[in-house]
C-alpha cells in the first residue's frame, strides 16, 4: 500500500515543479500566471473566445481548465493560491453585452471591460488567405505593446500597469530573439474611449532581397525558370513590387545573429506582423478595489474616482504613446 502510494506521488510532484516555475529562472522575477474562466452561462462563441484567450495567455495559464456550474469564485481563488496564479481573466455575459474582467490576485484590483465587438481566432484565420501558425508560436509568452494610454488619467495608468504585469517581464539581456513570436497590442482611442485588443504573430523578413530569392532560400525548391531567357534573369528581374512598402526605418531590425535560414546576422530584417486573433474592442467600465468586490475606483458611467485621486501619484507622465513591457 505504502509503496504504491510513494510510487505515485513522486513523479507527480516533480512534474509540477518542472512545469510551473513560479520564479523566472534567469531574472528571478515572479512569473505571472493567469486563469481564464467564465462566470455564469456563456454562449458558444464566447466559450470559443475564452479558449482563444487561454491560448493567448500561454504558456503560463491553464489551457484545459475545467469549470462547472457549481464553481464559485472562491473555488478559483483557492485553486489560484495553490498554483501561484496571479491574474484572473473572467468572461461573463449579460443580455446587453459580454464582459471581461481582469483581476489581480489576491486583493485586486479588478478591471471590468465591456466587450463591444470581438472576433475569434478562427474568424480571423478564415479571413486570411494564408493564416500562419508555426508550431512553437504559443511556446513563449507574447510581448505586449500598450499604445495611447499616456493621457495621464489614473484609471488608464492602472490599466497599463495591470496589463504590463499580466505577462512575464523579460530581461533584454537574456531573451532569445526567436522566442519573441507574438505580440499583444492594446490601443486606447481617446475619442471613443475604446481599447482595441489585437494579437499578432511576429515574423522577420530580410530587407532588400527579392521575393524570388527569398522563397528560393526558404523553400529548398527548384524554381520555375521556364519563362526566363537566362538564369541571371532569376536574380536580376524584379518580382512584384508588393513588399517593401512598410519597410521604413521603424519597422526594421538589424539582426546580430542568424534566425532561421533567411534572416542572417548583420542584415536588415523587416518586422512583419500577421494577426492571429482573438480581436476585441473593449471599453473600461469600472475598476473595483478588491477581487471582484470592494469599492469602486473608477466607474465609466458615474464618476466616482475621487477617492482614488489621493492615492495616485501624478508626477509620472508617459513619455509617448507607446509603452512596452518586455517579456520573456
Amino acid at each position, binding site marked *: 500500500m505504502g509503496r504504491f502510494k510513494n510510487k505515485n506521488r513522486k513523479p507527480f510532484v516533480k512534474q509540477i515543479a518542472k512545469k510551473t516555475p513560479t520564479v523566472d*529562472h534567469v531574472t528571478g522575477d515572479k512569473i505571472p500566471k493567469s486563469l481564464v474562466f467564465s462566470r455564469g452561462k456563456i454562449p458558444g462563441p464566447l466559450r470559443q473566445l475564452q479558449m482563444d484567450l487561454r491560448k493567448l495567455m500561454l504558456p503560463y495559464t491553464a489551457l484545459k481548465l475545467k469549470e462547472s456550474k457549481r464553481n464559485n469564485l472562491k473555488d478559483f481563488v483557492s485553486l489560484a493560491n495553490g498554483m501561484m496564479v496571479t491574474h484572473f481573466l473572467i468572461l461573463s455575459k449579460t443580455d446587453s453585452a459580454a464582459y471581461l474582467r481582469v483581476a489581480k490576485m489576491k486583493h485586486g484590483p479588478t478591471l471590468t471591460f465591456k466587450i463591444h465587438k*470581438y472576433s475569434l481566432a478562427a474568424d480571423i484565420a478564415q*479571413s486570411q488567405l494564408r493564416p500562419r501558425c508555426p508550431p512553437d508560436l504559443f511556446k513563449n509568452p507574447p510581448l505586449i505593446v500598450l499604445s495611447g494610454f499616456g493621457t495621464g488619467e489614473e484609471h488608464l495608468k492602472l490599466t497599463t500597469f495591470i496589463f504590463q504585469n499580466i505577462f512575464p517581464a523579460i530581461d*533584454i539581456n537574456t531573451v532569445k530573439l526567436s522566442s519573441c513570436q507574438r505580440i499583444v*497590442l492594446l*490601443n486606447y482611442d481617446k475619442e471613443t474611449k475604446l481599447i482595441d485588443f489585437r494579437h499578432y504573430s511576429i515574423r522577420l523578413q530580410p530587407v532588400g532581397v527579392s521575393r524570388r530569392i527569398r522563397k528560393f532560400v526558404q523553400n529548398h525548391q527548384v524554381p520555375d525558370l521556364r519563362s526566363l531567357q537566362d538564369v541571371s534573369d532569376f536574380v536580376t528581374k524584379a518580382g512584384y513590387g508588393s513588399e517593401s512598402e*512598410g519597410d521604413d526605418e521603424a*519597422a526594421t531590425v538589424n539582426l546580430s545573429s542568424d534566425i532561421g535560414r533567411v534572416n542572417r546576422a548583420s542584415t536588415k530584417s523587416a518586422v512583419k506582423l500577421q*494577426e492571429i486573433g482573438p480581436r476585441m474592442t473593449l471599453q473600461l467600465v469600472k475598476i473595483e478595489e478588491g477581487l471582484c468586490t470592494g469599492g469602486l475606483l473608477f466607474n465609466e458611467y458615474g464618476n466616482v474616482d475621487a477617492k482614488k485621486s489621493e492615492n495616485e501619484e501624478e508626477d509620472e507622465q508617459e513619455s509617448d504613446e507607446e509603452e*512596452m513591457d518586455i517579456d520573456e
Partner: protein
Amino acid sequence: MAEELQSVSEATNYFRKRKMELRKKGGKGKKKQKGVPFSEKRVKIDNKMKKLFEKRARDYNSDNEDDNDAEPAPVTRAKRTSYGKDKPKSYGKDKPKSYGKDKPTSYGRNKSTSYRKEEEDFDEEWADDGEEDLNEEIEISEDEDGQVQPGITKFIDGCNAFRLAFKKILKKSSSDDILGPVLSAHKNLVAEKLAEEDVERKVKGDAKREKHLIREKGHVKPANFLDAYEKSLIAVATKGASSILSAYVIQVNKAQHAQKGLNPSRAKDEKAIKKRRREVFFSELGKTPSQTTVSKAGASNSLEDDGPSWAPLRDNYMLTNPKLKDWDKNPDTTVEDDVRMPADSDSSDDE
C-alpha cells in the same frame, strides 16, 4: 375469414333455430380455436341478460348499442355510420376492396362474441341501412364461388347504386390537390391548419433568431481585407515590436563587441567571453559585481541557493523591482524602468 364470411351469408339464409344450432356448433368450435377470453365471456351471459339485450336490440338505435357490449361496439358503429352517411368520403379514403374484407369480419366478430343470441334483430337492422350494398359488394369483389346467395335478392339494384355512387366518386376525386380527395369542409380546415402551422413556425423562427442574435451579440466576422484602421494598428504594433527587438539587438551587439578578438571555440577564450558578458550585464544594471554579491549575502536567506551561477542577480533584481510589492503606489516607475534599459546600455557601451 372465408369461413366467417360463409357464416354471415348463412345467417341470412336459414331459420333462426337451425341457424343458432349451427352457429352453436360451428361458432363455438371456431371460437375455442381462436381464443379463450371470448369463450369465457360467452359462458357468462345468462338468460336475464340475454332478455335485456334482446329488448334493447329491439328498440335499437345507435346510442343503445354502446350499452350492449363494451368491446366491439365502437368498431361496428363506426363502420356503420361511415357506410350509411359518409359514403363518398369513406369510399374515397379506403380502397373499395377493403369493404369486403373489413365489414364481414367485424360483423362476424360481433356475432361470435356477445350477440350470439339476438343477432336476428340485428340482422334486420343491418339490412336496413345499407347492408345490401355491402353484401353485394362483397360478392363483386371477393366472392370466389360466384354464387348468388339465396338471401340477397336486390343484387342488381344494389350493384347499380353502388356503381353509380362509385362512378360519381371517381369522377369527383380526380383531384388537383396534393392532399388527395378531401371534403370541402375539410379542405378549409386543412388550409386553416396549414396557415396556423405556418404562423407557428414563423413565431418559432423569430424566437430562435432572436436568441441567436443575443448569443452572437458582439461577435463580428472580420473582413477579408485590412481596412485603414487595422493597418494603423498593425503599424503601431510593428513599431513597438521593432523597438523591442532592436533594443535587444543593441544589447547583443554590445556583448559581441566585447568578445571581439577572442575565439569562442577555445575553452580559455570562452571563459573570458563569459566573464565579459557578465560584466556587460552588470553594467547594464548599473552596479558592480561586488555590489551585487554583497546584496546577495543579505538576501540569500530568503531564497533557495540552488539557482544558476548568477543567482545573486535575481535577488537583486527583485529588490530593485519593487513593482510587485506596491503596484498601486507608483505604477509608472516600472514602466520607466523597462524603457530606460536600452538607454542605459548605450551609456555603458562607452566604458
